[in-house]
């Protein structure tokens, strides 16, 4: 016996009886009548060419598992991919908290019934503040690229100048995002790196400094994993020029590396994906912007900034928006840039992550990553004709130069893949001078065995 029409589990008032009662109460015969204000010429008359609904949960699950089964994961294979998205360990408690319905499905309630969300994000801001040694951190924005873009526009507004200098060692994707966001209002000028260390070429930098320069943006560690040692010198040169120093940083490096604010950065930015968020195909990103607690900086943030304050009860505290009037929520186009839904939940996982790791855990993590990447670099450079491109201290990532062996990165990666290894990203696509080079990433999830296997396989592939 056929089932006939069944009410969808997600639409309770689809029950014909209930619909009829509600229509009667409204005094309307048919739901279609409720659309009377939409002119005929605008009515869509056809049928949407979308398959019939898979209304049973069991079948839906089955179907989607089947679709996703065509993916091969970084668990099933050994991955050395990085470049802005990383396979770091996500603690079970991070998943537990972000899976809680109370957080997962909340949105824009008041700091009363949604006090929990305000406190969680205030704690995120605070924990990041400790990591970055800054007193102001925003509620997360979309990703690092956005954070860098807004930092740059902030520098433009604070200085009243229109040129931004950008190191040519930053992520290509992020540079594209910056261009989309900052042009045509600001002018972008790239500053070359020194070929050996990949550090900023100081002479180049100085040659570009003039009174139209709002600031300089560089990433440290760079996209290539190299660590810039001249931070303080760069900061001084910019400061003398009345320009703002913006540094993009992967926060997971800050257990052992000096945070940018400590070597003169005025604005720090970066991504929180590394802090307790899965890779999700590059889809689980969140950007942060951090500065000193100075009115002229605070007033330029477009994002929400949650502040802690008193309530009318002694000993009780509450939260709210700091300087709300600067936002587009308050004053539309007269606000700073714009603000909206971004990546709050990933901020909450980052808060949980940092709370779990604590200062010791962050240091141990940095150490683990540094040791493993050094081991990998060491062993890879033992391969004939394979070199580590840059002569600098590296964190987590490094550029491997295969060009002396006359094999393209594409070929090498294909061969590695047949052995269940995802090789490093081909840098030739984005960087002319890095043809035959690949960007390799090593995290705390990479085992010695993984690294040794990589080396063995490469050895075989290259011979």
């Amino acid at each position, binding site marked *: 016996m056929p089932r006939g029409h069944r009410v969808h589990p997600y639409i309770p008032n689809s029950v014909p009886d209930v619909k009829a009662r509600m229509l009667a109460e409204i005094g309307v015969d048919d739901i279609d009548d409720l659309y009377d204000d939409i002119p005929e010429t605008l009515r869509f008359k056809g049928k949407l060419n979308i398959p019939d609904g898979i209304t049973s949960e069991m079948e839906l699950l089955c179907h989607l598992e089947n679709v996703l089964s065509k993916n091969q994961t970084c668990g099933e294979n050994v991955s050395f991919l990085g470049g802005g998205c990383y396979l770091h360990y996500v603690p079970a408690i991070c998943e537990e908290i972000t899976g809680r319905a109370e957080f997962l499905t909340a949105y824009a309630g008041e700091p009363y019934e949604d006090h929990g969300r305000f406190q969680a994000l205030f704690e995120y801001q605070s924990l990041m503040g400790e990591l970055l040694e800054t007193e102001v951190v925003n509620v997360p924005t979309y990703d690092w690229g956005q954070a860098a873009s807004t930092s740059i526009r902030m520098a433009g507004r604070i200085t009243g100048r229109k040129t931004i200098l950008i190191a040519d060692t930053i992520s290509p994707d992020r540079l594209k995002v910056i261009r989309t966001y900052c042009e045509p209002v600001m002018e972008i000028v790239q500053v070359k790196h020194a070929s050996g260390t990949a550090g900023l070429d100081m002479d180049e930098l100085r040659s570009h400094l003039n009174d139209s320069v709002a600031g300089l943006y560089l990433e440290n560690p760079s996209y290539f994993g190299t660590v810039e040692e001249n931070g303080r010198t760069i900061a001084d040169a910019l400061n003398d020029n009345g320009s703002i120093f913006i540094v993009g940083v992967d926060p997971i490096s800050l257990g052992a590396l000096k945070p940018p604010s400590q070597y003169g950065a005025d604005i720090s930015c970066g991504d929180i994906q590394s802090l307790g968020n899965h890779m999700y195909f590059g889809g689980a990103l969140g950007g942060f912007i951090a500065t000193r607690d100075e009115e002229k900086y605070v007033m330029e943030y477009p994002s929400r900034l949650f502040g802690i304050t008193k309530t009318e009860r002694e000993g009780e505290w509450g939260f709210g*928006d700091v300087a*709300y*009037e600067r936002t587009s*929520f*308050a*004053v*539309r*186009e*007269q606000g700073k840039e714009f603000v909206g839904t971004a990546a709050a939940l990933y901020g909450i996982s980052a808060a949980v992550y940092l709370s779990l790791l604590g200062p010791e855990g962050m240091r141990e993590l940095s150490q683990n990553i540094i040791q493993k990447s050094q081991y990998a670099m060491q062993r890879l450079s033992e391969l004939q004709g394979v070199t580590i491109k840059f002569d600098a201290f590296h964190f987590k990532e490094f550029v491997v130069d295969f060009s002396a062996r006359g094999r393209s990165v594409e070929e090498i990666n294909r061969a590695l893949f047949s052995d269940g290894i995802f090789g490093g990203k081909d840098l030739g696509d984005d960087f002319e001078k890095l043809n035959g080079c690949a960007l390799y990433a090593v995290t705390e999830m990479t085992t010695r065995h993984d690294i040794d296997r990589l080396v063995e396989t490469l050895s075989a592939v290259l011979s």
Partner: protein
Amino acid sequence: MKTLGLIVNPVAGMGGAVALKGTDGLEILERAEQLGATPKAHARAGQALAGLLTSYDSFELLTFSGDMGESSAIACEVEPQVIGSGSTPRTTPEDTVEAARQMAERGVDLLLFAGGDGTARDICGAIGTFVTTLGIPAGVKIHSAVFASSPAAAGRVAASFLSGAIARVKEAEVMDIDEEEYRRQVLSARLFGYLKIPDARRLLQGPKAGSAVHDRAIQAAIAQGIFERMTDDRLYIVGPGTTLQPLMDLLGLDNSLLGVDIVRAGEQIAKDVSEREILEKIADTACTLVLTPVGGQGFVVGRGNQQISPAVIRKVGKQNIIIAATPEKLTTLRGRPLLIDTGDVETDACLCGYYRVVTGYRDSAVYRVSD
């Protein structure tokens, strides 16, 4: 302990019920009484006080004797400190002025007054923005922006202000209505001056709303935008209103707040000019007229505005009129158009239509102006 000053204009509002507009002048008042009008201000003041007392009662009340405030206080079981008395048998505008002066001298925290535009004008003339005031609407015609929306609302705002819940104040326009004209069904509003009132925006726009401070930031942005587009070859006729004050500040010029100034190439050519002077100056020059709506009704040009006459407007030309207003100002119109009333029907008709109203540094609203 906070001090509250209360001034009641006993005759305010008597004209309305008997279809007389306003009660300025003894003749009109007597006529109203003949027609059976009874004093309303006393009751309105009582409502406001009662409303205030339900939320806040630790204040001292200063007032004048009898129906200038004492009886309203007593009716609410508040013992007032009577600091003066009005004329007998009928109180006069001079009494209002004297009461206001006395209260200002004693530094009241808030001066509540029950009346209409005329009362507001008297108080404004007496003390300007020396102390914070708030109007309890009791007059027939309310065009000034210094009144609460109702006596109960006045009580609420007063309570919020005295208790500290409202911490900010702002300047609000006091309008001068030509009574004679008004009685002949003709409205001519002129900006008379400003009083300082509590900034109740948070009560109306929610706790995240802007403030008078922020309004000034937007006015500054508007000014910057207009300033940057000014050219040296044109003459700029700058109308009255605080919204245009930052523009004059940017130019480094003195602003005649209530009058019209003429500017060219960053220099003040003339200040607080008359119609004749304007016509002389703009005789053969390209010129731009910069205006902002004043008063609660949104008049961009009101008939009482003697300087910006139909002749001046015809010379300037519609396309050379810049209207500036903050978004908040436009929002308070609730969809009603901005208004024009030059006194000449033809000129008005020409001016009607949609204008780019400057609302920010580079931003504007396209808004309807009507007659």
